């Protein structure tokens, strides 16, 4: 009975709609000859929006994409508000219905630091560039946690948003980007704790502290770059869900967090920068704690490596994006 009432409602409402259209006509766009009618002639980009004429309707051309993907960052920019809302959602939702709430952002790196200090610092006697071991480890763990959580969140982001992907169009890049950005709040909190610890140890930040934003950006680029690869692969192969935790763990140990990179002689140390997180971690220690490691060349290598990962990830993502809705 209900169903039939429902379909009756549909017919009724659409009948009214139809008659209204017949009577009312299309005043809104009468006489507007939309611009960009031949935008189909442009090459490459499958989805073109011509918004040069704000009075007329926008024109979208849908066609199969061929060859190398177009990043189409312009469109992503148009959807910046969506990006903002997705970040905002991730931030809001992250600690909903948890007893400890946002303190999780601090608990995780803090207790890792405690464990590292006990086992690596005290028992194993790992050197720490002349710094107290706890702060040596924590200065590295703060950017590391940002990287690691960004990586795991973004890797899962596409699969967990499959409802959206299957039903609504928007630039898919927004999803993994949002999940990496959402980690910035956690980072800010943990960073405050780091500053508190420095105060506790009576350390003042050096002038190099101005490099922190750049180093954070480097961590973000790395996290997003790897996240893009993993999230796109995850659509196809759910193995990725199992690979990610393993990757994060493995990466933790090949990054100089529990130990200093100064254990390595040059030029190997600079080459160590091929792991972008090595550059980030050593950079954080250098700019905040004033270690005398002068990681400049290492960071340069890291930046280059991170950019390669990001560019590759972005193109791979866009290339795979065509079939996300069919495969997820």
């Amino acid at each position: 009975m209900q169903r039939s009432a429902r379909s009756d409602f549909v017919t009724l409402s659409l009948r009214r709609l139809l008659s209204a259209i017949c009577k009312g006509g299309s005043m809104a766009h009468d006489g507007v000859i939309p611009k960009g009618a031949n935008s189909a002639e442009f090459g490459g980009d499958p989805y073109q929006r011509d918004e040069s004429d704000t009075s007329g309707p926008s024109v979208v051309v849908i066609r199969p994409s061929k060859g190398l993907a177009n990043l189409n960052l312009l469109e992503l920019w148009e959807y910046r508000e969506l990006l903002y809302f997705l970040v905002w959602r991730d931030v809001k939702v992250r600690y909903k219905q948890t007893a400890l709430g946002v303190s999780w952002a601090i608990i995780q790196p803090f207790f890792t630091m405690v464990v590292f200090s006990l086992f690596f610092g005290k028992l194993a006697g790992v050197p720490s560039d002349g710094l107290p071991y706890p702060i040596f480890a924590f200065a590295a763990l703060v950017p590391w946690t940002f990287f690691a959580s960004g990586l795991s969140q973004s890797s899962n982001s596409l699969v967990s948003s499959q409802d959206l992907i299957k039903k609504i169009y928007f630039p898919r890049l927004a999803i993994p980007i949002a999940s990496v950005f959402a980690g910035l709040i956690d980072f800010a909190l943990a960073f405050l704790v780091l500053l508190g610890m420095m105060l506790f140890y009576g350390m003042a930040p050096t002038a190099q502290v101005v490099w922190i934003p750049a180093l954070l950006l480097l961590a973000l680029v790395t996290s997003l770059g790897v996240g893009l690869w993993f999230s796109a692969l995850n659509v196809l192969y759910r193995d990725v869900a199992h690979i990610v935790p393993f990757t994060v763990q493995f990466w933790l140990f090949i990054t100089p967090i529990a130990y200093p990179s100064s254990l390595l002689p040059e030029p190997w140390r600079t080459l160590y920068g091929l792991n972008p997180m090595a550059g980030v971690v050593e950079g954080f220690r250098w700019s905040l704690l004033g270690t005398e490691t002068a990681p400049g060349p290492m960071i340069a290598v890291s930046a280059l490596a991170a950019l390669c990962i990001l560019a590759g990830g972005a193109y791979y993502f866009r290339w795979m994006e065509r079939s996300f809705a069919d495969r997820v």
Partner: protein
Amino acid sequence: MRGSAIHIDNIGKQYRIGAPENRHPTLKDALSASSRRAMLAIRSPLQIFRNKQQHRFWALRGVSFHVEQGEVIGIIGRNGAGKSTLLKVLSRITEPTEGQVVIRGRVGSLLEVGTGFHPELTGRENIYLNGAILGMKRREIERKFDEIVDFAEVQRFIDTPVKHYSSGMYLRLAFAVAAHLEPEILIVDEVLAVGDASFQRKCLGKMGQVANEGRTVLFVSHNMDAVRRLCTRALLLDDGEVAADGTTESVIAQYLSRESEFIRPGVPIDVSRAQRMGNGEVRFVQATYSSLEESVGCQPYTGGPLQLKVEIDSKSDRLIESLAVSIRNLTGMLLVNADVVASGTPLSVRKGRNAVIFNIHALHLNPGRYVVGLWAGDALRTASDHITEAFELDVISAEAGGLGLTPRDNGVVPCRFDVHVNAGPVSPSA
């Protein structure tokens, strides 16, 4: 002058079946498949090509049509004809394999009501989030915010997480956001009405308002009646191709004649290759239906009997506890389910072919088209063979050729009634 709102040119969409697009492969599968392919390529280079062809099919092929601005067009066709694939391509969710579409104007669809809602967020937060996902600008959402809240009737709960909403409230809020998107092109699927009667009236008003602004509407439906009433033009999709495009009446006529080409009363219908579920212990092979009334060509009619002969293959001598014939209307609502389990006496069948005859004494169905389903299984609802859509049949009016008109909004079941008029008020004592 009206411009064309949608210009579809030779669109095709190819899917692979049994291959990655339809299941979740693992890396191992991919690796072993590629090594297998390499082996094949070494053994016979032609085989690999042929193999590839077999696993692909076109969900849409060579589809071309234009929709003028302000036109209301109905898209009809059987399940699997490509209707939903077409909608997916038009709303840019999936990319076509070939061809091109030019769309002028923002596309909104009522397929996606409530997608992107987050249960932990409040109503207010979800309006912003969902609006942004549907492509609204923040200013636009702010401007329409109060209107949306009023429309959804959730003022009191606007700062409550939507996971605490009743399903009605949830749907109303979701519909309210979608309805305020104000797209130039609206894609409507049948299932859009939500909520109670008063909310539905509000929806009506809203849609009337939308229509006044000259929107283009694509209406996808199984319900011929609805399409006939609403659309000036219709498009018939069959097997991924446009089979007919023209006035609603002519296209619907074509659709109906196509459907009933082979299915007539008294003629055995082959159901052995129908889509089915179950363990296959017994299988339906053939079905024949008839009203046994020669004067109407054995066509089932309202209030008349229906005899259904089904032929069943059984793998062994056995008892069938539950054997049923179901009748649904075209929107999928189950109207009749004649199940032997109700009688409590299992049917005994022999190994091999068996014929079972169902006699439904009176068919309380209005004239129209219905879908017949077949079921065999045990009393615990484990299916041996289950065909939800075995075949369709038309029920005709018993008073064919009579003077009466069929009311436009017919109920689900017929009723016999008569009317008398007497002068004066109805006396209370009578």
